[in-house]
């Protein structure tokens, strides 16, 4: 195979790959969300695949949550031991970060397969 042929072939493969990603064929279709509770109540629910940075307050204090590239972590908590910050990034369904002193928890749950057309109530 000539250099030029290889170039053409690889560019086509790359193009196809990009198309695949663009049209979501390789995308994880599960709708995973981060559930944030403060003082026992759900205060925020957001998708894990969208980058975000925000503050969560509780009666005890506050911390910041960073969501990036399908993972989530705590930064800059007002708690003493900073165990929540040391936990680092989490990204798997069912994983959670709990800041006991602040009474704030961050849990990743899966809503996979729960896509519904509508809801009856």
């Amino acid at each position, binding site marked *: 195979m000539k250099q030029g042929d290889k170039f053409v072939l690889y560019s086509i493969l790359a193009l196809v790959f990009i198309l695949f990603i663009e*049209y979501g064929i390789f995308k994880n279709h599960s709708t995973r969300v981060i559930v944030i509770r403060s003082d026992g109540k759900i205060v925020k629910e957001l998708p894990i695949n969208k980058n975000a940075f925000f503050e969560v307050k509780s009666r005890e204090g506050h911390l910041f949550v960073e969501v990036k590239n399908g993972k989530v972590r705590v930064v800059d908590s007002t708690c003493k031991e900073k165990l929540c910050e040391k936990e680092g990034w989490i990204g798997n369904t069912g994983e959670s970060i709990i800041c006991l002193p602040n009474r704030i928890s961050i849990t990743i749950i899966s809503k996979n397969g729960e896509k519904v057309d*509508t809801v009856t109530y």
Partner: protein
Amino acid sequence: MSSKKIVNIIAYIFIAVILIFVFTKGKPLEKPAYSEIYSMNTICDLEIYGKDKKAALQKSVSIINTINSIIDDFSPQSDVYKINENAGIHPVKVSKTTIDMLEKAIQIAKQTDGAFDPTIRPLLVIWGFKNKNYRVPSEEEIKAVLKLISYQDIVINKADNTVFLKHKGEGIDLGGIAKGYTLDKIKETLDKFDITSAIINMGGNVLTYKNPPNGSVWRIGIKNPRGSGIRGIIRVKGTKFISTSGDYERYFIKNGVRYCHIMDPKTGKPARKIISITVVSTKGYLGDALSTAFFVKGREFALQNTTKFGVGVVGFDNKMMPFISNNLKNSVTIYNEAR
């Protein structure tokens, strides 16, 4: 590699890409005609597909507004208001729609031994569900009002198009049948247009019309009666009506007791046999009114009467234990916790 080979490779890749698109994406999704309106004291979502979707949507919205203007018991122009105001005084001329809806309501009242009763209004008034000043009335108050709850007292004169309530103080409330009835009318309208698919949700009362835009099964979530999310899924095919009655939509809690807006016409108190029940039916008015009657009567009555009415039911008893009629066993999935 010859240029011919490269052309071949390119061709193969193109075919592969096209095949992958066909098998993974199907036809490109058509955009529905969509509208969200606030009517009948609730939110109505309409999503319609097909050549005539815009005209069908417009007509459907006007049906909702028309029926709402007939049954709105707070509007002095409505048929229901006029009937109630003139209870025990004189018959009132009303629209054919009102008579049709009342006849259907009376029919179900008879068939459910009065568990569904369109003359429930005086009870809703004394419990504060009409003006949202919720209160627990005294036993004497309830006893006095119970005499006014009687669907047999609705006198319909079809020759004159009039309706009369026999006694002063009696009152009609069509909240337990009007949304389902409206969905029937929307379905009839969709039939007249070139529509391939539609899903209409009127405050939890759902009409699925034909097949979903990209598949053959509609997935209807059952709202979690205690908290957020859904507690189950009903899979339905084709044109169906799905209605739910539960104690979690309109209720108040006093001294730790939950009082919901669905009244038991026999006791004069909120029904509390079950937490929620969903009815799958081929008639909207039937599913809507039956969900109320089944909610009042409870689990056993509901399960024993599905064949009689040609419906399916899925519900949660007062311990949150699910129950499903045999004809729905294969189409319902219940989750152990909210999703």
